[in-house]
């Protein structure tokens, strides 16, 4: 496994969705390659950053429409 292969497998690795041989090759490469170790770390940091984005607000006009629809249904 070379670096260009590894970067395409990072999500499969984090999802624990690789066969054991591929996983072993992935981890062997990681242990020997600081560039790929950093790449994996940055994907994890990216996921973490995305997880801290604030929730979206709902437009009050649409909310009112939906509650009106509820009252009509009820």
């Amino acid at each position, binding site marked *: 496994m*070379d*670096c*260009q*292969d590894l*970067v*395409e497998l*990072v*999500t*499969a690795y984090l*999802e624990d*969705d690789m066969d054991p041989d591929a996983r072993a090759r992935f981890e062997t490469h990681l242990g020997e*390659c*600081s*560039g*790929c170790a*950093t*790449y994996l*770390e*940055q*994907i994890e*940091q*990216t*996921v*973490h*950053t*995305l*997880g*801290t*984005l604030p*929730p*979206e*607000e*709902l437009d009050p006009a*649409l*909310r009112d*429409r*939906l*509650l009106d*629809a*509820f*009252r009509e*249904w*009820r």
Partner: protein
Amino acid sequence: MTEIDTSYEQRLVDSLRARDESAFAELVDRHTPMMLRVARGYVASAEVAEDVVQETWIAVLQGIDRFEGRSTLRTWLFRILVNIAKKRGVRDRHDSDAELAAFTGSPTVDPGRFLPRTAPEDPHHWATPPTSWPESPEGSVLGAEVLDVASRELEHLPDRQRIVVVLRDVLGYDAAEVSAMLSITAANQRVLLHRGRAHVRQALEDYLGTGA
């Protein structure tokens, strides 16, 4: 965060069946923004997406007495949404498959950052490896500007990638649930997630000024 409190969910279902408006309002507040995002991935305009969302909520209310709890309430809700959105959508299934195929094969990291196949040593290894990002005292790369960069890049992603990344990484739903919600295969879900994450990572790297 991905754990679903089943007793809590059962209470919500029971309250809806009892025509309790506050339970409905709570569900609407929690899920409608993401429903709009998902609908927008299938239909041509924000207005049509709002119609799809409204139609979905009405279908949920009309169906709640028959809901058997074989999936979670939110999975059921999103499956109804996707079905309605597909019917209303101008981008038919053929187009979305083509969109997926067009993005599946290409590399997610600029090939120029690797040594060429013909390099005498270490072909396909990093020529310009990423360098570690500076960390804040809390041990993360967080900061208001970094969040803005991530948020802006999300908006630039192709629709299907953005939907999967938001459901998985922003909202924290698990892989199986997201595949079920969107009626896509586990493999497609993973491809879309990976491509979306790779785009956002690149945007953060560009902003943080390291690497190529």
